[in-house]
């Protein structure tokens, strides 16, 4: 138990710091790299929670494809690699306030609801169960999501093509 908690704490700290750097750094490439850290940390959390498949999928998809996509996007939009003067717009402070407000509300809610509730001891949920669920209960959403991916693919091509 203690090991998990320590692991959680370390990984959580990493995530938060990296996320903060994502939204504050001037260099967009650096932001992408920090995003990688965040995504990896989240995958680790999934493993801690016993969600192996989700964690694996996270790594594969997010770290493997989406980040690459981002980098391509950065490249194609000629972002200045050395960093811009300011990457934030005028409503920084309003945004901060809103975010803090949201945080406050959410924390309060969470703490109020799940005061000291503990996760059950064995939280491992095997991939087989996931597969069973996807292909039985959530079959239709699964198929829909495939169609969605197709649509997104086609749509992206259509939007971004040069003609």
């Amino acid at each position, binding site marked *: 138990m203690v090991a998990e908690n320590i692991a959680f704490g370390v990984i959580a700290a990493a995530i938060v710091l990296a996320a903060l750097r994502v939204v504050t750094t001037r260099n967009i490439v650096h932001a992408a790299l920090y995003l990688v850290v965040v995504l990896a940390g989240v995958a680790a959390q999934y493993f801690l929670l016993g969600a192996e498949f989700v964690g694996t999928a996270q790594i594969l*998809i*997010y770290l493997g494809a989406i980040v690459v996509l981002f980098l391509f996007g950065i490249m194609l939009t000629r972002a200045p690699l050395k960093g811009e003067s300011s990457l934030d717009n005028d409503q920084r402070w309003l945004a901060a306030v809103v975010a803090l407000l949201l945080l406050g509300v959410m924390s309060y809610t969470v703490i109020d609801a799940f005061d000291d509730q503990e996760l059950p001891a064995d939280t491992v*949920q095997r991939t087989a169960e996931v597969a069973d669920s996807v292909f039985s209960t959530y079959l239709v959403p699964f198929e829909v999501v495939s169609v*969605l991916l197709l649509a997104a693919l086609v749509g992206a091509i259509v939007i*971004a093509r040069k003609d």
Partner: protein
Amino acid sequence: MLINQFLLLGAVLFCIGVYGVLSRRNGVAVLMSIELILNAVSINLVAFGALNGDIAGQVFALFVITVAAAEVGVGLAIVLLIYRNRRSVDLDQVDLMKG
């Protein structure tokens, strides 16, 4: 492990993502912030799934990941288009709907 840890982590990540969405000028950076938000949500989902022993949490997290991928693809395509039309991805300059 307390459930609250994961939930609070998710909340913090969410709010950072919100801050990023609202304050970043670069379109791509906004998309990155949106990824942060989505990840926070996924953490919540999986945590709750672990709490209740319900596999649906993980399933939904998978779906979220999938949809996020699709969304990033389309989103970047749009940002590309904006760049092509305006030579910059500064969101502050996209204010054609200004009243």
